[in-house]
């Protein structure tokens, strides 16, 4: 169908507005889930089209390039889009159990569902667009929805987290815009395909590239611009937190792959600085996690550390590195969302996220088993998806002769395992030291909360047992990327 690339955006927008108009909370929840399901269907169909007949070029409003804004939907974009939509569906199902009908007011539930739909417009728009300024606009849509989602909770802690998150991300946006202006001035175009194929660019394109690089690093939470993440994420409620963790920084990594993975025209050597930046991100993230005493804080720092793995793979500047980064993205989006769901389940059942107050989780065999799968996958144990993801990253590093960073990534894996075992022992093994009564959850609650956790764990296991079923998609995406760029630097 002619509108296929914009269909996920239109559906999200429609359901966001519809959910806003609904008055009954039961209908609201069903409607949102229906919307998420519809988007998954649209994304799957788009993915089918792109993988069978090649990338789609879509001109908004039928204005031909170079005057119009173009959507360029290639395999990388649809992979990201499809997995994001599946994570949204999982988060909505999880929220059905996390916020049972009676517990939260209609207003706050509406806030979550409507704003998440609007958030996803920005996310899908960022994935599909082929124009730099259009990317800025989708980033801002994404950003303002995330501000509102953060600010939904009126407590002082959430509000100060929102303020810090907002200010740091707005500074990043300002740098993005500045770089954008310089790109336009140097090359006369903002369309990425045109930019890649231009022969002569004025020397100030290097400055433009640096400013854009800065903005994307800020968005991806890479050293030295990652501090906004552990400051703001732990104050979120579990369903939104799982979404934020699984999606927002990945949009940043996606833009880094798209614009710097194959070398920004005029600034190809910037790719290699990602080796050092990624390495430092890995180690600082996991050191930060090692001293935290709260499940959400630990997992937030781990997001930073895992982003480091992806950036370090990108920094090799090779096709293998790009494949590693994309495979890692797929693995990480699923595992991180799953871990945050588990943390949310523990919070719901035992009422706390502090490790000191948790315990007695050993009575809950299924959850312990599922946590073990996700945690070991994060740490990189076979036969789970994390093992293959880290192995391919290591291979690309060794092939590029970056032995120090390869060794560092192994060391960081050990520290990741230490962190996860800390949560394991505190939350699942030890006897409770404080007597906090555990909530009894209804069958429906358990089902809707555990259901997504089980399915995502099965995905992790499947990806670990059959990596050759997932790798060709990443390789195809890389092939198209390199084709478009006309070769690697």
């Amino acid at each position, binding site marked *: 169908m002619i509108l296929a690339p914009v269909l996920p955006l239109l559906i999200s927008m429609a359901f966001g507005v519809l959910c806003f108009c609904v008055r009954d909370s039961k209908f609201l929840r069903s409607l949102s889930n229906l919307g998420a399901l519809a988007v998954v269907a649209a994304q799957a169909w788009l993915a089918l089209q792109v993988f069978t007949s090649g990338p789609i070029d879509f001109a908004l409003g039928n204005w031909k390039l170079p005057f119009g804004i173009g959507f360029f939907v290639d395999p990388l974009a649809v992979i990201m889009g499809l997995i994001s939509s599946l994570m949204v569906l999982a988060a909505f199902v999880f929220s059905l159990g996390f916020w049972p009908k009676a517990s939260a007011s209609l207003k706050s539930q509406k806030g979550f569902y409507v704003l998440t739909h609007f958030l996803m417009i920005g996310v899908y728009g960022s994935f599909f667009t082929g124009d730099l300024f259009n990317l800025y*606009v989708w980033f801002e849509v994404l950003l303002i929805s995330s501000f509102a989602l953060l600010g939904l909770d*009126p407590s*002082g802690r959430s*509000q100060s987290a929102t*303020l810090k998150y907002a200010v740091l991300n707005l*500074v990043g946006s300002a740098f993005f815009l500045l770089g954008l202006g310089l790109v336009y001035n140097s090359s006369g175009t903002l369309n990425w395909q045109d930019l890649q194929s231009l022969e002569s660019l004025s020397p100030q394109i290097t400055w433009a590239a640096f400013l854009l690089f800065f903005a994307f690093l800020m968005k991806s939470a890479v050293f030295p611009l990652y501090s906004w993440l552990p400051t703001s994420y732990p*104050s979120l409620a579990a369903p939104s937190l799982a979404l934020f963790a699984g999606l927002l920084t990945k949009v940043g990594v996606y833009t880094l792959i798209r614009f710097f993975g194959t070398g920004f025209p005029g600034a190809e050597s910037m790719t290699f600085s990602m080796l050092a930046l990624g390495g430092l991100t890995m180690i600082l993230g996991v050191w930060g996690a090692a001293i935290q005493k709260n499940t959400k804080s630990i997992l937030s720092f781990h997001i930073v550390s895992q982003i480091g793995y992806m950036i370090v793979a990108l920094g090799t500047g090779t096709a293998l590195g790009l494949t590693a980064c994309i495979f890692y993205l797929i693995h990480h989006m699923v595992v991180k969302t799953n871990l945050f769901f588990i943390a949310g389940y523990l919070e719901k059942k035992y009422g706390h996220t502090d490790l000191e107050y948790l315990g007695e989780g050993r009575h809950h065999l299924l959850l312990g088993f599922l946590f073990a799968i996700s945690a070991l996958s994060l740490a990189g144990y076979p036969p789970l998806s994390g093992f293959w993801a880290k192995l391919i990253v290591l291979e690309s590093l060794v092939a590029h002769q970056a032995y120090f960073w390869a060794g560092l990534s192994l060391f960081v894996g050990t520290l990741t395992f230490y962190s996860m075992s800390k949560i394991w022992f505190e939350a699942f093994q030890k006897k409770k030291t404080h007597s906090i009564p555990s909530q009894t959850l209804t069958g429906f609650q358990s089902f809707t909360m555990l259901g997504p956790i089980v399915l995502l764990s099965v995905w992790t296991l499947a990806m670990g047992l059959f990596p050759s079923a997932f790798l060709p998609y990443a390789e195809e995406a890389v092939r198209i990327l390199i084709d478009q760029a006309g070769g690697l630097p």
Partner: protein
Amino acid sequence: MSLIISATIAWLFGFGIYLLLKPSFLNLVLGVALLGHSVNMSLFYLGGLKTGTTAIIPEGSEVLLPTQLDPLPQALVLTAIVIGFGMQAFLLVVAAKASKSNNTASVEKMGGDL
């Protein structure tokens, strides 16, 4: 003229960063606003400065003459200004709410995680 505009952009940017680093939440919001203004102005500047012409197709012609202004950066700046305006409005409300909920006007004392 380009010297004056460059100087203004630089001054706004520098002052915006200076305000961002101050502890009071109101300075924070003003700093972000100034940063946004300076970047918008630089976008406008980077689109090319000419006096005495417009970005509108003249009577009797079908395309823009090469001596005229480029309309695209003007469109970009308009979009950026509107987006910035929305962001600043939201930021002001959040800052005021955060200050009230934490009973302090200093961002440093607001605490929270980290």
